[in-house]
């Protein structure tokens, strides 16, 4: 514990979780968002509903399913334990897997909106000029859609920093491994340490406000450019 009881170790776990979540969801989200925006996807409504589900599902429901999926009684849990010697649940890797799922809508939706906002004639012009789809993506689509991509990353980062319910259910609050800042705040409140809880809550609040401001600022840019 450092100044004002701030739990830097939990802060580190949260940062690490948010960083890895963003890093892994960036390519996965781009592929998914772009596919949904530009291609004919069978049962697109269902896929979009699945992507959006973590937005509305209670974290306990998501946490319960993930715990069941990761636990020692599932095939996944058993395979993981056989490979790594410890179960997926209650480990940082398990937390990260859960984080990827509960952040899917925060990563995919802003990117999908950004791709959908690209005028079709711009992409068609690129193809006519002989650009391959890959080069079109790198040279045309990504530069135009980047505010949406960045705002997706900002939201994902902020949401991971603050997520509580799912982390509580699949994490186990082990210091240095699965105790995130949000869980540390919960623990401090229960330990009657209002000062530390207050200090850490202020840090989370500041983080979230900055991230949301970034996300909104960038979304505004997209709107102005294509509006």
């Amino acid at each position, binding site marked *: 514990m450092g100044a004002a009881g701030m739990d830097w170790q939990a802060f*580190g776990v949260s940062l690490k979780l948010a960083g890895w979540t963003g890093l892994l969801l960036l390519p996965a989200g781009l592929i998914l968002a772009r596919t949904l925006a530009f291609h004919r996807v069978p049962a697109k409504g269902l896929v979009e509903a699945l992507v959006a589900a973590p937005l509305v599902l209670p974290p306990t429901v998501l946490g319960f399913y993930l715990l069941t999926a990761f636990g020692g009684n599932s095939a996944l849990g058993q395979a993981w334990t056989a490979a790594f010697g410890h179960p997926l649940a209650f480990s940082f890797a398990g937390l990260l897997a859960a984080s990827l799922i509960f952040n899917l809508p925060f990563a995919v939706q802003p990117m999908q909106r950004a791709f959908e906002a690209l005028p079709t004639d711009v992409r068609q012009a690129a193809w006519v000029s002989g650009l391959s789809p890959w080069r079109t993506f790198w040279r045309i689509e990504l530069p135009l859609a980047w505010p949406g991509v960045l705002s997706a990353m900002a939201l994902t980062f902020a949401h991971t920093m603050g997520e509580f319910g799912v982390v509580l259910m699949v994490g186990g609050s082990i210091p240095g491994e699965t105790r995130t800042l949000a869980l540390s705040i919960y623990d401090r409140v229960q330990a009657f340490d209002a000062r530390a809880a207050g200090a850490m809550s202020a840090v989370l609040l500041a983080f979230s406000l900055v991230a949301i401001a970034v996300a909104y600022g960038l979304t505004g840019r997209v709107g102005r450019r294509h509006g």
Partner: protein
Amino acid sequence: MRSLIFALALVLAPLAARAADAPAVAAASDLSAALPEVAGAFQKATGQTVKLTFGSSGNFTQQIQNGAPYEIFLSADESYVQTLQAAGRTQGPGELYAVGRIGLFLPKGSPLKPDATLKDLGAAARDGRLRKFAIANPDHAPYGRAAREALQAAGVWDAVQPKLVLGENVSQATQFATSGSAQGGVIPLSLAITPQVKAAGRFVPLPADRHQPLRQRMVLLTGAGPTAQAFYRFLQGPQARTILARYGFTLPARR
């Protein structure tokens, strides 16, 4: 600044790295004031550290059965240790380390009387003075179950039940009671002794024969390493016993 560098180092630490030999200890919430002191004394004596997690004993039992990587479990109720032993998750039957006590806590300004017979609590529930009463969830928190038994023994359970707010564990129930949003609660003596709770209201111990004794058992779990074993021994030593006694626990006879 050093803390920030430490935080950054954690961020950059490789994903697969498991923590060094600082074993994770799962402990019942009634220990949340006493056990950090024991762990501090252990660190002073041996230079080794443990990672403490507090929660309800029932939830820990679930988590350990599902493979949570704890190396020691300090339950508030020995039946949970027996459950884990039957499931093959423990090294032996464990050790009785303390017997807990509960009492009635009334926050400052509560309209209730500090009455250990709980008669006034029943009356307050009927005449509307009592709006909310906090206990831990009896389904998975041993202190919640003891609270329910005490309320039943006093014949006030039916009157109080509609007013209950349930904490996920006994620390949370204590939090509810001390915050003043509930007019009272049943909390452990070990938490009532802490300065924060003392300052927040009044506490009257309930007679120990009004509920099943809170026989708190601890156990080494399968896979416990040398540091966990050292801490387990330390918990049975004189320093740890002195600390636990100071927090109001009745100690089992030394073997």
